[in-house]
């Protein structure tokens, strides 16, 4: 069985190269599957589980070039633990960055908050306001503070989400338009909030897998 995988901090995406079947599991489940091994892998939890390990930013950049035909574009992957960004000009990398210290774990924190307060992100209306989401811990403190002041959990989480979106937009250098990679493509409230600042083109959760395909013999 020939498989490649993007083993993120909270979610793992596995592609069977023979059947083209995509399996998405929580990374906590991957951790329990001690024998899972991949031809090529990327992501924080991919090391030691593959014949060839590929740097996440390289996988993202190569995936973006596979999926987007334009010469000039920005691509961001908002993950559970970090934010990765590549900007192309003439299909060459003009700028890249990986935000992993400040702003860390904001994606995972939003998922935790949503789960704790039973938030339906498809129905959650975007908020006009935001809280500063310096990192997951400080952002969560802001949410808890808002709730203690009487703000509903839904609005409080929307404030957090808006703060996260602003971090992403600033990180990208405030482009007019960008491509979005990762699980947040499926978070309608995130996409709608981001569209207050720029045109958003979601590419889905398999951009890094597309990048890994380039390394398959």
């Amino acid at each position: 069985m020939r498989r490649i995988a993007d083993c993120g901090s909270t979610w793992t995406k596995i592609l069977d190269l023979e059947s083209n079947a995509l399996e998405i599991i929580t990374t906590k489940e991957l951790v329990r599957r001690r024998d899972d091994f991949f031809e090529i892998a990327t992501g924080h939890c991919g090391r030691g589980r593959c014949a060839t390990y590929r740097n996440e930013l390289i996988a993202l950049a190569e995936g973006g070039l596979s999926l987007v035909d334009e010469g000039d574009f920005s691509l961001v992957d908002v993950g559970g633990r970090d934010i990765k960004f590549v900007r192309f000009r003439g299909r060459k990398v003009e700028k890249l960055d990986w935000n992993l210290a400040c702003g860390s774990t904001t994606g995972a924190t939003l998922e935790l908050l949503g789960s704790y307060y039973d938030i339906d992100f498809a129905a959650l209306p975007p908020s006009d306001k935001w809280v500063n989401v310096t990192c997951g811990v400080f952002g969560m403190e802001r949410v808890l503070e808002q709730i203690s002041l009487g703000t509903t959990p839904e609005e409080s989480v929307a404030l957090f989400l808006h703060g996260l979106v602003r971090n992403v937009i600033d990180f990208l250098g405030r482009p007019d338009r960008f491509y979005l990679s990762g699980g947040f493509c499926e978070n309608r409230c995130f996409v709608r909030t981001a569209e207050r600042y720029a045109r958003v083109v979601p590419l889905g959760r398999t951009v890094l897998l597309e990048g890994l395909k380039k390394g398959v013999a």
Partner: protein
Amino acid sequence: MKKQASDKVIGYFGFPRRSVLRAARERWGAGLPLVDLDVDLGAADSRALPPTTCRIISNIVDNAIALGPALAAIVAAVGEDKCDRGRHAAFLLRRRGFTVIESRFPAEEQENRPLLFSRARMPLRDKINAIMATIVDPSPHAAAPAPCAPTHGFWGVPPHDFRMLDLFPPTTHVYGWVRCVEAGRPADLELECAVDAGVPTVFFTQSFCAKQDIAHQLAEEHRGLAVDCHREVNAPILAKIEAFLRLS
């Protein structure tokens, strides 16, 4: 940190004036080893400084405290060639009883030495070590390394953790304060900010270092990669540099 109580050494940090270093050796013994306190010598955390201190400054204080009585004296760069926190470190170490000789590199002592290693084809780690060794021994090298055109650039100071340097190809040119050291001009901000246009450059600073201001601006101007790191580098920082070097 390996030392014997009977061993005496002279510590220094930054790039002290050559005349001040020479005078210290004449006073405390020309045969005493010179120890660069900026680098990671494996000293335990003294907790003398807040955790939000540039790791290089923490190294200076931790190393000095670990060496203790073995330090005959500390020659401390405290002028524009270093930073306020270096000056504070010198002040705090003197209050702890160390003999501290302050050095401020004056404009008239700025040299104009050839940039042999900054532009050489050789491993970046060796290049930086060779340049930093010229603080203590500026005598010309018998065999100058072969120069090369730059494919990449490294801007900054010697990092606390050298592992990141191993990612760079041998055709990486050195810019920033390290280049200033090789030129013998440690307080030359113009030279420190000079970068070859079009060379994909990593602008490195230790976290909490004032040079982050410059690195951020230069990285924007030159479309480079600004990287800061506290203590040891981690896998994502290495991955970011690796991706930049490969994709740029």
